[in-house]
């Protein structure tokens, strides 16, 4: 039964150490099962729940920035719509599609791990990493364009533009910058998962690390799903007329 490996511990005299010759029954254990879990199912459920608790803290972390966005946009709707029109909808929209592609290959990688398909897992992880890198390369060209057009907040911000637009660009750079930092971390995690997959670490019985890293990857995708319409498309219906409010 589940607790067979702990039998006998309760009757040890106080202060006696079990030492190296502990009478644990281990022969049927998966080597990937940590000692503090009863079985692989419990281990997977615990790690999934743990990752979600971390993601909830991430929701609140990005949530504070979205809160600032809501308030300033409420105060300066016209300036924000006009500032939004400086962003490149093609680059932002293209990057949204790139992230969606990376999410489907990530989900597919988890499926391959669950089925024990090592080759499929490795290919999907590599494609996921490539999509993630594509996103960051596009972001690099976008940021470079903003520097060239004097849209970066600070002493070199275009003096012809209203100060309220600096607020928009401050939040644009903080939100997309922190999002990009999460992408860099995600790619690093995926490289580790890729190395572990290469060594054949995962299979139908043990795929928790792939699944849990996938949750993080999908979360970063979700943040962008909200950032794209809120930052890039805010003033799209004004662009024809040129004037906002």
């Amino acid at each position, binding site marked *: 039964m589940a607790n067979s490996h702990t039998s006998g511990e309760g009757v040890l005299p106080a202060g006696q150490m079990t030492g190296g010759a502990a009478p644990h029954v281990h022969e049927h254990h998966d080597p990937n099962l940590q000692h503090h879990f009863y079985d692989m199912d419990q281990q997977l459920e615990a790690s999934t729940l743990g990752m979600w608790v971390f993601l909830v803290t991430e929701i609140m972390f990005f949530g504070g920035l979205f809160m600032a966005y809501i308030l300033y946009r409420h105060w300066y709707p016209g300036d924000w719509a006009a500032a939004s029109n400086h962003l490149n909808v093609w680059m932002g929209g293209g990057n949204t599609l790139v992230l969606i592609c990376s999410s*489907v290959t990530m989900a597919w990688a988890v499926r391959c791990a669950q089925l024990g398909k090592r080759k499929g897992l490795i290919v999907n992880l590599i494609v996921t990493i490539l999509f993630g890198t594509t996103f960051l390369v596009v972001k690099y060209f976008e940021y470079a364009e903003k520097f060239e057009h004097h849209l970066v907040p600070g002493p070199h911000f275009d003096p012809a533009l209203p100060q309220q637009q600096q607020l928009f660009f401050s939040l644009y750079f903080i939100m997309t910058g922190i999002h990009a930092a999460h992408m860099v971390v995600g790619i690093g995690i995926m490289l580790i998962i890729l190395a572990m997959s290469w060594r054949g670490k995962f299979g139908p019985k043990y795929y928790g690390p792939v699944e849990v890293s996938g949750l993080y990857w999908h*979360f970063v995708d*979700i943040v962008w799903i909200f950032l794209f319409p809120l930052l890039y498309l805010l003033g799209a219906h004004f662009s024809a007329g040129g004037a906002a409010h």
Partner: protein
Amino acid sequence: MSKGHTHVITPVSTLFIVFGTLFVLTILTVLAAKQDFGALNTPIALGIAVLKASLVVIYFMAVRYNTPLTKVVVLAGFFWLLIMFGLTMGDYLSRSLLGVPGR
């Protein structure tokens, strides 16, 4: 040792139907933003974004196959976010209601 429940593996067909839907919704949100719906532009954009995020959470993150405890944690996370938005904006939007100094 197993508690008897099997882990459901998401079929490839489901992954690609969700992928196609997300793709179409992304194009739809760009097209919708270019139309002037007045005050409705933002609710439409947010509605599409919430739909897309829900698809990712339910299918790609496989929350629908997860334990009830995980589902509650996920919902609580987003609910807490709404509490923050609601209370903060409730404060800012209601300040002008009082015609007193130091409001």
